[in-house]
C-alpha cells in the first residue's frame, strides 16, 4: 500500500463527506421543486460542485450516465468566458457543440464568489420535457439535423450580475410548448444552484479559501490514487466486445458499437475504433456521454469508496474516432442519443466480463424505451405525454436478473398509472410482466414488461424510440438471449407491428402495446436448480412448456418437479450437445 499522502486524515474525511452532501442537497432541492414528471420521477438530472479551475469536486448523482457530462461543458465555459465571469452571473447551455449532450438537457452554472474572488461553480443539468423543435418532447429519432430538434442554446449568460437576461428568457419561453413547466424546472435548477453556493461558502467560511482548495486537491488526488491502485489489480491486456443497435430508423441496418479496453498497470484506455459511422437519424451521441458510459461501467466494478470527481477521470483515456455515431460532426441530430449510450454501456460491460467473469451479468433490457404522444386537446391546449418504460436486469454470475428494475445506467422511476390517467389523454390497460420472455440460464434474465395504453384525444403524434428486436439482449456463459422488444398497434386480429423507431399520427381509441426486451440469461439453463424453475412456473413467470423446452425440467400437472424425468431429460440433452 502506498504511504498515506493525506496530511490530516480526519479533516479530510469530514470535508470529503461535507462536499458530497452539498451536491446531494442540491439534488434533493431539484426533486422537490421541479415541475415536470421527467425530472421528478425519472431523476433525469445531476448536480455538481466544481472548484475554481472547473474541476468536478462532488456530484449529486442521480443518473449514472451523467457521470462525465459536466467536465466538457465546464471546460468550455472557462475557455469562452475567461475574464468575464462575475458574481451573480448564471450561465445556460444545451448546445452539444459547446459541451452539451442533447438539446433537452439544459445546463445551469452559477459561479461562486467571495470578495470578488472566484471560488468555484454550482452546476445543475436537467432533462426538460420539451425544448421546441418539430416534435413535442424533443426526443424524436427521425430528425436528420439538429435544427429540427429544437432551440439550441449556446453557452450564454442567463443572468448578468444578478440581472435576468429578459431576451433570453422570452426566447426560451416562446420556443417551448409548455412554457410554465419549463420555467418551473428552470427555477428548480436555480434553487439548486443557490443551495450549492450557500453550502460551498459555508465550507469556505470554516476552512478558508486556501485550506479548502488544499483539501479538494487532496481529495481529487486520493480518488486518482485509489482508482489507479484498483486498475492495477486487473489483468494487463486488451479486451474487446461488440454490440449492436438494430437500425437508425431510416433503414441503415445494424449499427455496431465496438470497444477495446486496454488495462495497463494503473490506467485504462477505452478505444471505440470500429464503431459505425454517424447515422442520419437522431441516435448520434457525444464524446461526453460516451465517457460517461465508460465511467459508469467502471464504477460498477470498483469499490464504492472511490468517488465521482475529477480524480476519477485522470487514469482513464477514452478515444472516440470523429465521424462515428459516438462522435458525430455538425449538424448531426442527437435527441435519441440515450439509446446509443445504453448500448455503449452494454458493450463496455461485455468487454469487462472477459476480465471479471464472476462479477458481470448478461445484458438487461437494453435501456428504457421512450414513448411520447403530443398534440392539442379539443380546447386547443397542448399536451405532451412522455413515458420511459423500463424492463429489468439480465442474469448474473450468482443471482437471477431482476424483474422490474431500472437499467444500471439510469436510475429511472415509472410514473404512476393513476397520475398518467389523471393528467394525460390516455388510459393504461396493462402494466406487467410477460411470461416466458426472460433469457434462460442457470440464472434467468428478467421478464419483458408490457405497457398497453389507449389514446383518448382526437388525434396526436406518436413517437417511439426502442431497440433490441433484431439483436435481443445477449446471454453469457451459455445463457440464452432474452426475447425481442415489440411495438404493437391495436393488438388483436388486425394488429400492426410497428418498427422499433416510429413517428406517426394516432387517433382516438388507438391502442399501443409496448413490450420491452427480456434480459439475457447467465450460465447453462440445464444447470438451473429445478426448484427455482418450479417457483417460476408457480408464479406464472414461465410456463410448464417453457420449463421443459428451455431448462429440461419436467413440471407435472400437479405442479411438482418430476425429478426422475428431469434428470433423464437433462442427461439426454447434454449428451446431444
Amino acid at each position, binding site marked *: 500500500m502506498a504511504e498515506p499522502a493525506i496530511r490530516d486524515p480526519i479533516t479530510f474525511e469530514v470535508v470529503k463527506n461535507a462536499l458530497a452532501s452539498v451536491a446531494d442537497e442540491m439534488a434533493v432541492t431539484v426533486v422537490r*421543486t421541479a415541475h415536470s414528471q421527467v425530472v421528478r420521477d425519472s431523476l433525469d438530472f445531476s448536480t455538481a460542485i466544481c472548484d475554481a479551475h472547473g474541476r468536478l469536486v462532488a456530484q449529486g448523482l442521480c443518473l449514472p450516465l451523467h457521470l462525465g457530462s459536466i467536465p466538457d461543458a465546464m471546460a468550455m465555459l472557462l475557455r469562452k468566458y475567461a475574464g468575464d465571469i462575475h458574481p451573480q452571473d448564471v450561465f445556460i447551455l444545451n448546445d452539444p457543440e459547446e459541451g452539451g449532450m442533447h438539446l433537452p438537457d439544459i445546463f445551469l452554472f452559477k459561479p461562486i464568489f467571495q470578495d470578488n474572488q472566484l471560488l468555484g461553480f454550482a452546476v445543475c443539468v436537467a432533462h426538460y420535457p420539451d425544448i421546441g423543435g418539430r416534435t413535442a418532447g424533443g426526443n424524436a429519432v427521425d430528425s436528420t439535423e439538429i435544427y429540427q430538434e429544437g432551440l439550441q442554446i449556446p453557452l450564454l449568460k442567463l443572468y448578468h450580475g444578478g440581472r435576468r437576461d429578459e431576451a433570453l428568457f422570452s426566447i426560451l419561453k416562446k420556443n417551448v410548448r409548455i412554457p410554465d413547466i419549463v420555467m418551473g424546472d428552470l*427555477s428548480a435548477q436555480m434553487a439548486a444552484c443557490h443551495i450549492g453556493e450557500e453550502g460551498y461558502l459555508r465550507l469556505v467560511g470554516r476552512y478558508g479559501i486556501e485550506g479548502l482548495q488544499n483539501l479538494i486537491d487532496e481529495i481529487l488526488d486520493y480518488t486518482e490514487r485509489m482508482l489507479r491502485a484498483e486498475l492495477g489489480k486487473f489483468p494487463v491486456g486488451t479486451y474487446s466486445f461488440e454490440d449492436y443497435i438494430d437500425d437508425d430508423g431510416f433503414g441503415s441496418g445494424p449499427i455496431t458499437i465496438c470497444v477495446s479496453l486496454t488495462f495497463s498497470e494503473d490506467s485504462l484506455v477505452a478505444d471505440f475504433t470500429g464503431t459505425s459511422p454517424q447515422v442520419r437519424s437522431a441516435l448520434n451521441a457525444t464524446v461526453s456521454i460516451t465517457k460517461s458510459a465508460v465511467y459508469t461501467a467502471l464504477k460498477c466494478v470498483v469499490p*464504492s469508496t472511490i468517488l465521482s470527481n475529477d480524480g476519477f477521470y485522470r487514469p482513464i483515456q477514452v478515444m472516440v474516432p470523429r465521424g462515428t455515431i459516438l462522435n458525430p460532426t455538425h449538424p448531426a441530430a442527437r435527441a435519441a442519443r440515450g439509446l446509443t449510450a445504453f448500448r455503449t454501456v452494454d458493450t463496455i460491460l461485455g468487454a469487462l466480463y472477459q476480465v471479471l467473469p464472476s462479477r458481470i451479468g448478461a445484458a438487461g433490457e437494453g435501456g428504457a424505451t421512450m414513448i411520447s404522444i403530443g398534440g392539442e386537446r379539443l380546447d386547443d391546449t397542448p399536451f405532451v405525454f412522455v413515458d420511459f418504460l423500463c424492463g429489468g436486469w439480465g442474469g448474473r454470475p450468482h443471482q437471477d436478473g431482476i424483474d422490474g428494475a431500472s437499467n444500471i445506467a439510469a436510475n429511472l422511476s415509472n410514473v404512476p398509472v393513476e397520475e398518467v390517467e389523471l393528467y394525460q389523454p390516455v388510459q393504461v390497460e396493462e*402494466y*406487467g410482466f410477460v411470461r416466458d420472455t426472460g433469457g434462460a440460464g442457470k440464472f434467468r434474465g428478467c421478464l419483458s414488461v408490457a405497457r398497453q395504453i389507449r389514446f383518448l384525444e382526437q388525434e396526436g403524434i406518436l413517437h417511439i424510440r426502442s431497440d433490441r428486436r433484431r439483436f435481443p439482449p445477449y446471454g453469457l456463459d451459455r445463457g440464452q438471449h432474452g426475447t425481442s422488444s415489440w411495438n404493437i398497434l391495436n393488438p388483436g386480429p388486425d394488429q400492426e407491428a410497428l418498427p422499433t423507431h416510429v413517428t406517426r399520427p394516432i387517433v382516438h381509441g388507438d391502442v399501443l402495446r409496448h413490450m420491452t426486451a427480456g434480459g439475457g440469461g447467465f450460465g447453462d439453463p440445464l444447470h438451473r436448480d429445478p426448484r427455482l424453475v418450479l417457483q417460476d412456473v408457480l408464479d406464472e413467470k414461465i410456463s410448464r412448456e417453457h420449463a421443459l423446452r428451455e431448462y429440461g425440467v419436467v413440471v407435472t400437472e400437479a405442479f411438482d418437479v418430476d425429478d426422475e424425468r428431469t434428470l433423464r431429460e437433462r442427461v439426454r440433452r447434454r449428451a446431444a450437445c
Partner: protein
Amino acid sequence: MRLDSFRVGVDIGGTFTDIIMHGSDGSLRQLKVPSTPSRFEQAIIQGLQHLLHDANGRPGMLSTVTHGTTIATNTILEGRGAVTALLTTQGFRDVLELGRLRYPVLHDLSWEKLKPLVPRRYRLEVAERINANGEIERAPDLDQVTALVVTLRQQGIQSIAVCFINSYANPHNEKRVAEWLRAKFPDLHVSASFEILPEIKEYERTSTTVVNAYIHQIIDGYLGNLERELRSLGIECPLLMMQSNGGLVDAKTARSKPVQLVESGPAAGVTAACFLARKLDLPNVIAFDMGGTTAKASLVESGQPFEAPEYEVGGGMNTRRSLMKGNGYTVRVPSIDIAEVGAGGGSVVWIDDGNAPHVGPHSAGAVPGPACYGHGGTLPTLTDAAVVLGFLNPESLAGGTQKIHQALAVDVISKQVAEPLHLSLLEAAYGVYTIAVANMSSVIRAVSSERGRDPRDFVLMAFGGAGPLHAVEMARSFEMPTVIVPISPGLFSTMGLLMANIQYHSIRSYAARAELDAEVIEAAFTDMEACTLHDLEVMGYRPDHVRLGRFADMRYAGQSYELKIPVPSHPLTHRDLRQLRNQFGLEYERTYGHQTPDQQTEIVNLRLRATCSPPDARSSDVFGEREELPPNTPEITRDAYFGPDVGVLATPILSRWHLQSKPRPGPLIVEDMDATTLVPPHSRAYQDSFGNIVIQIG
C-alpha cells in the same frame, strides 16, 4: 398528592421491554426486562405485577396502559406475516412487484430487489375498471371473485388485500368486493385500499394495503392476547397504542389498521421531546437520539413533530430521502419525520485502501459489542475511542452493570487505527470521535437545512445512551447555541408514551385537477368531522373535549410532492381559499427558497386530525420540577483528551445533581445511570429546575 392511580408506559423492543409506571403522587417506577418473543405479552404482565407489588398498588389503580412496539416492523423484517393474497384490476397484477423500479445504491451490480410480500402466484386480477374521473367503466363480477378466492383458500391464504386502479377517485368497486368477501368468508381478513389509504398512486396504495394485510394477523393476535391477559390480571383500563405519527389510538383501531404501528417504536422519543419542548417553552428543537447502532434526528417546532408522508420499511437505514427509494416496502402512512444514520456507540472503525478512516455503518451490535466490553469484540468501535479519550468511565458503565476493560480499548485503537494512520493513540481516538460527529451531522442536516430551517435557530435535545456524549460537538459544528440533556436520557423514549395524546386521522382524496371550490371542501370537512366525532364519542371521548385540525395537501399543478397546509376551521369562503394559496406559497418559499405566485396550485388530499387527552392525563407530567441531593461522594477528576488544540485536561466527574443553576464551565463529565454527558471546554453547564442539564456553547 395522593397515590390513587397509575399510568403505565410499555415499550417493546426485540431485546428488551421497558416499563414505566407513573403514580398520581408523581412517583416514577421503571423496569427493564428481557423481551419474550414467543409471547411478548408475558414480559409485560410479569413486569406489571412486579411494579404493582413494588408500589403496593392494585390492578384497578391503573388508569391507562400506553404501548409502543416494534412488533409490526419485526414481523416484516423477519418475514413472519400471514400468507397474503392480493386482488388487483385486470392488467395490473404486477404493480406490487414492479414498484417504482428504482434501486437504492448506484453502480451495484449485485443488488437484490426485495421479494414482494405477496408472490405473483397469489396476485390475481379482477375484471373491473374505474376511470380517472371516477366513473365505473366495468363493475366487478362477484362470482369470478368468489371463484378466485376459493382457489386461494385452498392454497392456504390467510389474509387478502384488495387494491383497484383509481379506487381513490371512486371506491365503489373495491368496496363491493371487500364487503362481498367479508360476508362470504368471515374468517378471512380483508384489507381494502380505500379504507387504508384513499390516495392517488397505485403502487404506494397497494404496498401500504398489502403491508396492512400481511401484519394484521400477528398484531391482532398479539393485542388480543395482551388485552385478555391484562383483564385476567384485573386491569380494565384502556389499552392505547402509539402510532407512527406519535399519536395514540385505542387497541381496537390499531388491530384493524396495524400498518399505522410500523414506526411506533421511534415515535415515542420524539413525542417526549415535543412534550419537554412545550414544557420549557422552546419553539425550535431538534431531537437527537443516539444509541448503540443508529443515530436519529427529528424536527420539533412549537412543540409539534414534523410529519413525513411515507417511508420504506425493511431495507436498512432510512434517511427519508426522496432519492433513496427502492430499499424497503413502501408504507404511505403519516409518521414522524425521523432521519436515521448508522452511527452509534457500537459503530466499527475501519481504514480503506486509500488509507482514509471511516466510522460505521457496520456495528459490533450487542454481541460481541465494543472491544472494551470484554465479550470477545476484536474490532475498534466508537465506544472504544470514547474510553481511550477518557470520556467514558474506564471501569464500568450503567451503574456498574457493564464492566469496561480500558486496556482492550487502547489495544484496538492503537493497533487498528493509530498505527495505520501514523497518528498518536489520542489523536487517532479523537479523530474517530470527530468523524462520527461529522457522519451524524447528515441527520441534523436532513431535518433542518434540507427543510429550509437554519439549525442555528434550534436547540439540540440529546438523549439515548450515546446522545449526550456527542451532542455538544454536534451542536458546535452547526453553530447551535444550546444543548439540553433531559433526566434519564436512556429511558426518555419510553417516557414519551406517557405524554402522547390520542389522535385520529382521516383523509379524503380531492380531485387534483378540479378548481378549488370552497363549498365542496367545506362539505367534505364537515362530513369527516361528524364521522370522527361520532366514532370518538362511541369510545367515550366527549365531543367538547376533542380538538379538530383541518389540513390540505397542496402543490403546484403538476408536482408530485405536497406540503401540508393548515385550513381554517370556520365555514370556508372563497377568500379563505385565496389565503390558503398564499400560505402554501409562503411555506413553499420557506422550504425551497422561492415561490412562483403565478403558477396554479392544487389540493390533492384533505386531512382531518382529531386529538384529545387520554384518561387521567393530569398525571402525565413526568417532567415535573424536581430536586435531588447529589450523592455524597467527593468530586474526582479524570484525564480526558479534547483534541490537538486543547490536549489532555483533568476533567471533573460529577452527577447531574451536582450541577447548580449557575453555569459551570467545561470541561466536565456528567455520569448518569444510563448515559454520560460530555461538557467540553468552551461550553458551560447548569441544571434547570426540572433536573435537565443545559449546556451553553461558545
